[in-house]
């Protein structure tokens, strides 16, 4: 693998030929293996059942109605088997869709804006995180959720820095990831996290993966 990561077996579900080809090129370049390509919900289902990929990259909008076939197929797949890892991406992100997607748990689920594929490094990192069972939530969605005016005084009681950390937690990043993003040490992040959970009156979660759900639940997703 190019950057020392694991090779992933990926299924891509995207009806636009241009975009699909671009994604295949991107992933193959990095050393991943695209085991199947799908252009609608049914093909996606077949591909995932048949190939059991490490992760599926799914566009929300696909034929026949071009509204939310991809989202619904992803939800159905996870209903059948919560171990399926899916990264859903969309031209527009909406809290309602994120809510539906996360309804059955946050492990191995991602929801990103299509624009994020332009940040190649970040996109691949998100993909790896979802494949490893983590959660990825687009910062757009998170910023909508974390806006102080939506909440009780607890969130506004957080300092600006703590709110940044909260947002990054809600995006699904691990402590190490947050530390990298904010250019501080992991130890500092751990302190922030403890403080945040205390202020929000939540029990501390030792597991990076599980706390995402707690944070998101707190933020009304």
């Amino acid at each position, binding site marked *: 693998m190019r950057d020392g990561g694991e090779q992933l077996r990926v299924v891509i579900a995207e009806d636009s030929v*241009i975009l699909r080809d*671009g994604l295949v090129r991107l992933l193959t370049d990095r050393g991943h293996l695209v085991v199947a390509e799908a252009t609608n919900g049914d093909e996606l289902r077949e591909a995932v059942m048949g190939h059991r990929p490490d992760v599926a990259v799914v566009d929300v909008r696909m034929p026949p109605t*071009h509204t939310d076939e991809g989202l619904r197929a992803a939800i159905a797949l996870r209903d059948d088997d919560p171990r399926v890892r899916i990264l859903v991406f969309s031209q527009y992100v909406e809290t309602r869709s994120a809510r539906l997607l996360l309804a059955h748990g946050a492990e191995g689920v991602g929801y990103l804006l299509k624009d994020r594929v332009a940040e190649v490094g970040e996109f691949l990192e998100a993909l790896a995180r979802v494949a490893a069972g983590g959660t990825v939530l687009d910062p757009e969605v998170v910023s909508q959720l974390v806006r102080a005016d939506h909440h009780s005084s607890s969130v506004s009681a957080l300092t600006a820095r703590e709110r940044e950390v909260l947002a990054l937690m809600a995006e699904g990043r691990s402590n190490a990831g947050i530390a990298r993003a904010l250019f501080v040490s992991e130890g500092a992040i751990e302190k922030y996290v403890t403080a945040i959970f205390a202020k929000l009156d939540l029990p501390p979660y030792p597991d990076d993966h599980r706390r995402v759900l707690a944070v998101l639940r707190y933020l009304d997703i």
Partner: protein
Amino acid sequence: MFGLRTWSELLYAMTDLPVVGAATLSMLLALALGLTLSVTGVGLALFAAGLALAREIGGLERARARRLLGLHLDPPAWPRPAPGFLRWVGSTLADGVAWRAALYLLLRLPLAFMTWVLAAGLWAVGLADLTYPAWSHLYPQSWAGMTMDTPPRVLEVTAAGALALLAAPWVVRGAVRLSRALVGFLLGPTALSERVRTLEERRGRAVEDSEAALRRIERDLHDGPQARLTTLAMDIGRAREALAEGADPSGLLDQLLEISHQNAREALVELRNLARGIHPPILDSGLAAALETLATQSALPVDLDVSDADRPSPAIETILYFCAAELLANALKHSGGRRVRISLSGDDTSLLLRVEDDGVGGATMAGGGLCGLEDRVRTVDGRVAIRSPRGGPTVVTIEVPRHA
């Protein structure tokens, strides 16, 4: 003579009094109660209820006339009120259809009575007299002072009965004709209400049309330029990463740059076409200029004949332009012809667009494209006419007013 029509009319006449009588009496009861109590709100509501009852009975009467007299009448359009009891009362009190139905019932009652008496009377007497010989010895009848019990007198009665029976259908028909006229006059749609109904339908269609158009634009944008630009951004991102990792510039980079350049160019083309599909800039210079451009860009040779100097309103220009474009595309796709003639003419009030091709003909309104075209034209009260016999040629004429 004693066929189906006679029996239907007789049935109509016989059901007149009970139906109309019951209906009118109920309505009058409601109206009267409403009036006496009108100082209170309840009175008004009762009055409105009476009117609404009349309106519903109107429907029943139309059905009765349709079933038994073969009178086909469209129900008049009446405005559906917004929800809420007070609104219902208010709109019913102001509803012309309800008032006309009430008037109908009032006028109808005496007519029903008369019809019923005539029909019942003639048939009953006719039948009785015709069968006189059978029961004359039981109940001998007297007429003008004479007892009709001798054979010639009995025969006279029978003859009278026969005459009555022969006359009955005609008399009933005459009376029923009066009723039928009343139904047509008071229970049918008026020009104004029809106009309102048509306008509401067209407004609905226009709104849906624009909604569908917007959705189409969004989808075209999503599938075309947005997808391309996303891929473009992705490819450029990869190029940067590759450079940062010290990749060989000439190999991978060259390939990436070529694809990106291609994507950017095609995105431009798609955007340009999309914009033109929304509003062709040439239309700002007038319909004549836009049609000229259409003609020069067309794959089929086009003879253009524009003999109209005054520009109509922009909305009309846009509609005519897109109609011409669609008809031209149809001619290219389906007609198999070799030339198309487009002509635009008009007078003070309206414009006429005529598109003719020398192809195989057989075009009908049934195709989705032409139907949509007609819908759009009708939203401005225009008209579309197609003449397209098998073997051709096809001529489509569109007439619209100068101002939408």
